């Protein structure tokens, strides 16, 4: 009897409280996320997932993440499913997260293909899709406000520094002939197209003497390398995934071919993976993107790069998933979310969108400045051009070359 009276009293006071405050704080914030532990996209998906989990665990250890509307820290509950790189499975799982698990925040798997299926689902359900690394230009359109790209710029923006360097600095260094080789998929194919266009539009006296696409599944480049060599280029731009870069650089070393100048995407993105597979020697004088994995941005929010790297090594000592840009991308996604939640009046999706867009231009993390265009595409977190040079003790050092305001050294060209 006493107990029920008490219960009644509690109920009444709760009702009173809810009517006073806007809403009762939920016991937890449900964040839904997919990863691919197997299949084609596993190697880009797992580091992002681990990076994000690291953030979530850290917040939970601190008692949760602060939400302004409730004026308190609320613990995070991660709801994660494995889509096995299978898009049909991913669809079902995205929808499961939205409709059955009723997550408060929906985070896509990494890479454009596995993100693509989330875009219409999120839009249909009026869920704001947090897109960590799906850079497909098709996702960002005027009629879809339900998406924003978190941790790297859209694929057309990536190659601007390297293309600008080739057309601005190249002619001074004697670069007249450029070869472009790319893997034909959305991420790297779009970059090749953009780079080609930047170079041609610049009006610089540069000929593109070799320009070919190869299937993404290509594993042997020996003949292509020989053909590129025959076209006698001053600079080679290779746009491929990590596996493509590994095969390309290894085949070059095995065939004893050296180009005067060479640009590849992944040495800067997944540096440890590439070092492990290609060796320090194979990466010497290779130009690449300088991502936040090498560039020490001064973060105004979240851990700095060395801190994050230490936390990563401590949390995942078995080294089955390499530390690299994708791990930072996962962590950055967490940081953007954390900052946004800190300014949200409620867990409403339109409020989430508003709060995420409000960070644009203001949030500076270890991944650089977060900036969105009006469609939700990432235009900040830029990737300058860099070059690996032999540093002290035989270790590689990554210099930033271009644009001039972030340059730390001059290009070594032609390579010795």
């Amino acid at each position: 009897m006493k107990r029920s009276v008490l219960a009644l009293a509690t109920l009444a006071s709760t009702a009173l409280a809810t009517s006073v405050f806007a809403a009762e704080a939920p016991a937890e914030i449900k964040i839904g996320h997919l990863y691919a532990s197997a299949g084609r996209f596993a190697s880009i998906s797992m580091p992002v997932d681990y990076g994000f989990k690291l953030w979530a665990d850290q917040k939970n250890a601190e008692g949760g993440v602060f939400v302004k509307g409730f004026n308190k820290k609320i613990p995070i509950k991660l709801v994660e499913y494995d889509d096995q790189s299978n898009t049909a499975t991913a669809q079902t799982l995205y929808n499961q997260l939205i409709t059955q698990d009723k997550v408060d925040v929906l985070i896509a798997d990494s890479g454009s293909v596995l993100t693509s299926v989330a875009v219409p689902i999120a839009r249909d359900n009026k869920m704001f899709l947090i897109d960590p690394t799906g850079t497909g230009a098709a996702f960002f359109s005027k009629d879809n406000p339900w998406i924003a790209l978190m941790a790297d710029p859209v694929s057309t923006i990536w190659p601007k520094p390297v293309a600008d360097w080739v057309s601005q600095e190249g002619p001074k260094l004697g670069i007249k002939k450029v070869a472009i080789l790319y893997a034909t998929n959305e991420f790297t194919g779009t970059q090749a197209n953009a780079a080609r266009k930047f170079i041609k539009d610049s009006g610089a006296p540069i000929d593109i003497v070799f320009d070919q696409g190869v299937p993404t599944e290509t594993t042997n480049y020996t003949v292509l390398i020989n053909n590129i060599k025959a076209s006698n280029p001053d600079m080679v731009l290779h746009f491929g995934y990590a596996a493509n870069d590994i095969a390309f650089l290894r085949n070059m070393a095995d065939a004893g071919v050296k180009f005067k100048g060479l640009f590849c995407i992944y040495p800067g993105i997944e540096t440890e993976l590439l070092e492990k597979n290609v060796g320090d020697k194979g990466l010497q004088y290779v130009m690449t993107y300088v991502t936040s994995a090498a560039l020490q941005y001064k973060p105004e929010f979240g851990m700095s790069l060395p801190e994050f790297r230490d936390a990563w090594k401590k949390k995942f000592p078995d080294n089955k998933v390499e530390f690299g840009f994708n791990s930072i991308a996962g962590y950055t996604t967490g940081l953007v979310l954390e900052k946004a939640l800190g300014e949200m009046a409620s867990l409403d999706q339109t409020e989430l969108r508003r709060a995420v867009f409000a960070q644009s231009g203001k949030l500076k993390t270890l991944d650089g400045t977060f900036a969105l265009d009006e469609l939700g595409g990432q235009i900040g977190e830029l990737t300058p051009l860099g070059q690996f040079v032999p540093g002290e003790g035989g270790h590689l050092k990554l210099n930033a070359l271009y644009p001039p305001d972030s340059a730390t050294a001059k290009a070594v060209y032609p390579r010795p």
Partner: protein
Amino acid sequence: MPRYAKHILFIVAPLVAAFAILPFAYNNQLLLFNFVLFLTLAQGVNVIYGFTGYLPFGYVGFFGAGAYGFSLLILHLHAPPLAAMGGAAVAALAIALLLTPLLRLSGAYFSIANLAAALALMQFISNPNLEAITRGPYGVSMTGVFNPRLAYTMALIVMAGAMLVAVWLRNSRFGLALQAVREDPVSAAQAGVDVPRARAYAWLISAVIAGLAGGVFAWYVTVFYPENVFSSDYSIFAVVFALFGGVSTILGPIVGVLILYGVYNFIGFSTPQYFQLIYGALIMALVLFLPQGLISLVKRRGIDVP
């Protein structure tokens, strides 16, 4: 009541009705949509494998062809979605006609050649040189046709169509002729069955079913890459589901999809970390211990399964 009427009344109608009502009770509509899609595809596999013995390991080729047939009409001709569904059927039919010579091959050779054809089609469509037509590797993105409710309804209609085809094959002279060809092509030919033509018809029908499923998929998602619609998982799932239930019946593929795709999603939701492992082991166990499908358990007792 004639047999086919019974089959329609007691199998097809309840199934379609169930999936028409379920969205009101259960709101993971995409899960339901995928069920409908796989019911359609499994029945399509049944048409060609169950009734002729040809295992279409590259069945997804027609699915992808349908998805692109649909999308190209939308992208280039701004066709209304319903008309574009016709494009899906035509695209799959055209590919099937092109591949009809494969029916000359026997056994595993047919399956492998069919798989190669599906992969070739994907490589072709996703080639950057065709970007102006197919968007190449950069993927299709259709604006203005996004309408999941209508696409779901269309998926139901396509599924109903596939089921009706199975009912027809189960109850018609043509279906009987096909099964005779499957069991013993020489005797069937002697009995007056035009063997190559019968096989070709089953092949084309089965292709159109997959093509329509592909079209409806494209409509439902509106954004996709070649890898999505040519993923060999579609072929494999459809074949495994059909086989698990038991082919050359109407009920087999339905039971197979409902149980096995149900289990698949259950594993996916509950123990995602061992997803692939459990599912792979399950498939192996199925082949080793139930090669004729679940239906064979009932058939063994002398009960006729529709």
